[in-house]
């Protein structure tokens, strides 16, 4: 089916150099991989920072190699938290599942050879790199100019995401292969597509907010009155007002970001669960509707902030709405995953384990979200350990699990080699246990702090347990972070020496990217354009030689395969 003579088809073109092959290449696969490398670098940088923070929390006197040179003041610690958050949220959770895997696999899965606007795509990637440099640089320079640089970097990231979103949505609408109708699109493509549309709407709002903020800071405009208010107040008032202001800005981004980060992960998980259960996605149409629902609610809640309460995101009603509106689509997705897993011959390889881990983390993180939807409780424990535990579990760690699952799944396609399975499973189990040990006690800590708020029940014994619990968390996080070393070793080793993936379709998956050699040739599909004949999840088909029907297999060929199978 696939042709692999793409390298020999034009011998007159000279072999391109390093720069044009990796740095200035407009090829969607190169750009997607570059995003993944950037995310990999950021995730380890972010992990190192969380390690520093936890060590500092438990052993404040401990001499750390890197921190004193930056000044040992509390605002440095706050800056560390900010940098950890912005790196993880923007460059890992937003960029990796959407821009990374999306750029590589969205065109492959819909049978396009390129994204709609390749040059714009390249521009978006380098803008993302610039924002990465800016975000990191903001930590190293003086706080005042650091904040400005940080906002500029976020604005650049917004612009890059807008370009990326435009590319993805136009590619999905216009560049699908023959026969790839909307109902036949893989759920991953649906998720990327819906996320792109959502991103296109909300990132421009974030960009506008950044423009206002920057004018306030640089041109002393009067958009956010509180900024000027703080500037004219004595220091004692500032100390009380700054956290409020900070939370305000934080929620500006976080509100939209949660959906943008988690939507592609829903798609990835659904895809993996179906492939490794060898069953079609249960209620596929409903899943697509649920994904649309997530996008719609994500936008409407944001829109409510913008249009009804204007620039003030501090309406408790909206917080409650946000939490409960995600409930219905999330429940549908969960039901579909369980329905797909029901009575299935599940293949428990590392990719599937990570997908199941995502479901577990999403469920437990989501359950604690119900408590937060009660705004009286949320008001008491905002910026508390409970919230930290909740959103790390549901957003950060869960999304990371989906990304890792996708990486284990697509690694053979990306590099033509396989990741080591036993090492991968070991990495999974340590990480899985580790994140629960880190973030579940954090919920407890939040509740303890909450119980101390009420004066009639001081609970000294429980409060005393808090400090030992903090130590436990820190030890757990040390172990979890070092377990990521296993992953890094596995990744680098497999990249060079890993077991070669001989066949182009090692997982016996159905979508188009598995119809081409691994790694795919420069022009993806060789000489003939792919044609799609059926839906994306034709597993457990009865009378064929194997239990699945790839999307690109013509009915005649499948009939032939059926005869030879009998």
């Amino acid at each position, binding site marked *: 089916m696939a042709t692999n003579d793409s390298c020999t088809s034009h011998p007159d073109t000279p072999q391109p150099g390093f720069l044009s092959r990796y740095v200035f290449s407009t090829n969607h696969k190169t750009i997607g991989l570059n995003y993944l490398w950037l995310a990999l670098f950021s995730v380890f940088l972010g992990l190192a920072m969380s390690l520093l923070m936890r060590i500092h929390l438990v052993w404040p006197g401990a001499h750390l190699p890197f921190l004193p040179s930056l000044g040992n003041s509390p605002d440095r610690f706050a800056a560390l938290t900010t940098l950890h958050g912005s790196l993880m949220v923007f460059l890992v959770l937003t960029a990796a599942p959407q821009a990374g895997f999306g750029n590589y696999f969205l065109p492959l899965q819909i049978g396009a050879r390129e994204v709609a606007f390749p040059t714009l795509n390249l521009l978006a990637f380098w803008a993302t790199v610039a924002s990465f440099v800016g975000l990191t640089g903001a930590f190293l320079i003086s706080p005042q100019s650091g904040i400005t640089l940080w906002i500029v970097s976020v604005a650049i990231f917004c612009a890059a995401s807008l370009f990326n979103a435009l590319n993805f949505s136009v590619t999905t609408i*216009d560049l699908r292969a023959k026969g790839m*109708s909307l109902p036949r699109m893989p759920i991953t493509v649906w998720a990327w597509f819906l996320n792109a549309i959502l991103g296109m709407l909300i990132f421009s709002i974030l960009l506008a907010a950044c423009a206002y903020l920057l004018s306030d800071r640089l041109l002393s405009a*009067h958009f956010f009155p509180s900024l000027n208010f703080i500037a004219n107040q004595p220091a004692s008032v500032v100390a009380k007002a700054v956290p409020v202001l900070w939370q305000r800005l934080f929620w500006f981004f976080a509100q939209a970001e949660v959906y943008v980060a988690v939507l592609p992960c829903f798609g990835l998980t659904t895809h993996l669960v179906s492939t490794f259960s060898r069953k079609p996605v249960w209620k596929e149409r409903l899943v697509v509707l649920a994904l649309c629902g997530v996008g719609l609610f994500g936008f409407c809640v944001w829109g409510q902030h913008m249009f009804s309460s204007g620039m003030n995101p501090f309406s408790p009603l909206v917080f409650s709405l946000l939490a409960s509106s995600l409930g219905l689509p999330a429940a549908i997705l969960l039901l579909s995953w369980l329905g797909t897993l029901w009575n299935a011959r599940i293949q428990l390889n590392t990719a599937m384990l990570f997908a199941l881990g995502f479901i577990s983390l999403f469920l437990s993180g989501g359950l604690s979200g119900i408590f937060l939807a009660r705004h009286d409780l949320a008001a008491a424990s905002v910026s508390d350990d409970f919230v930290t535990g909740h959103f790390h579990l549901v957003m950060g760690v869960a999304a990371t699990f989906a990304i890792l699952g996708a990486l284990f799944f697509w690694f053979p396609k990306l590099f033509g080699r396989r990741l080591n399975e036993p090492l991968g499973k070991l990495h999974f189990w340590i990480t899985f246990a580790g994140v629960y040990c880190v973030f579940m006690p954090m919920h407890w800590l939040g509740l303890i702090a909450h119980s101390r708020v009420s004066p009639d029940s001081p609970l000294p014994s429980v409060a005393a347990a808090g400090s030992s619990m903090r130590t436990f968390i820190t030890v757990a996080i040390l172990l979890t972070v070092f377990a990521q070393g296993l992953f890094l070793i596995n990744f680098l080793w497999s990249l060079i020496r890993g077991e070669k993936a001989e066949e182009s379709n090692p997982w016996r998956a159905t979508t188009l990217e598995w119809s081409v050699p691994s790694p795919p040739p420069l022009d993806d599909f060789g000489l003939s354009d792919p044609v799609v004949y059926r839906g994306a999840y034709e597993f457990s088909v009865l009378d064929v030689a194997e239990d699945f029907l790839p999307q690109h297999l013509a009915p005649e060929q499948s009939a032939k395969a059926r005869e030879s199978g009998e």
Partner: protein
Amino acid sequence: MPGTTAVPDIELVVEDIGGGGGGPTAPSGGSGDGDDGNKRRRPGGPPSPNRYYTGIALGIVSILMFFMALASAFLVRRGTSGDWIPVHLPAVLWLNTLALIASSFTLERARRSLSRLNLSGFRKLWTITTALGALFLIGQLVAWRQLVAQGVFMASNPASSFFYIFTAAHGLHLLGGVGALLYVLVRKFDKASIALPTAAEIASYYWHFMDGLWIFLLALLYLGK
């Protein structure tokens, strides 16, 4: 758009003859093939020009969201502040607006000449459109100068801050529009992957949108002062 579910199988088994994914609007001449062939072989020809239409439509929605966010902040901020001193809009703004509206008309006239294959008429009208756009931008700068002369700066009060950021954001977007008009004027389209009528149409959508957007912003600034 390849959206049909019931594709006749026989047709599909036949080796792809090209035009796969092609939309109803075919570019004039297959000149795009040669250019793209340098980079890689495209058996189906270049991807459908539909992507430009979809792209501009989605891009307009996205830009609209940006300006809606700006505008909603304007309304909210105006309602909640006690330090609001209305900006007296300079008279030159009305002239600018006239120039911009006129440019939309000349743009449509230009495209009509193009559809009648009157290339010289097209070029003349298109140049006039571009000049009117540039005139608008210069006029906006003049308006800024006049306000500065009156002592109204960005930092003066919330109303002036909003005036400057609205005009600046719109001006930047319109500058992009002028760039697009120049691109259509200057570019040799026999080697491009986009045909001249397509490029002109895309540029015209963006231009009219910028035109309408300016009228909206002006109304907001005028009525909301």
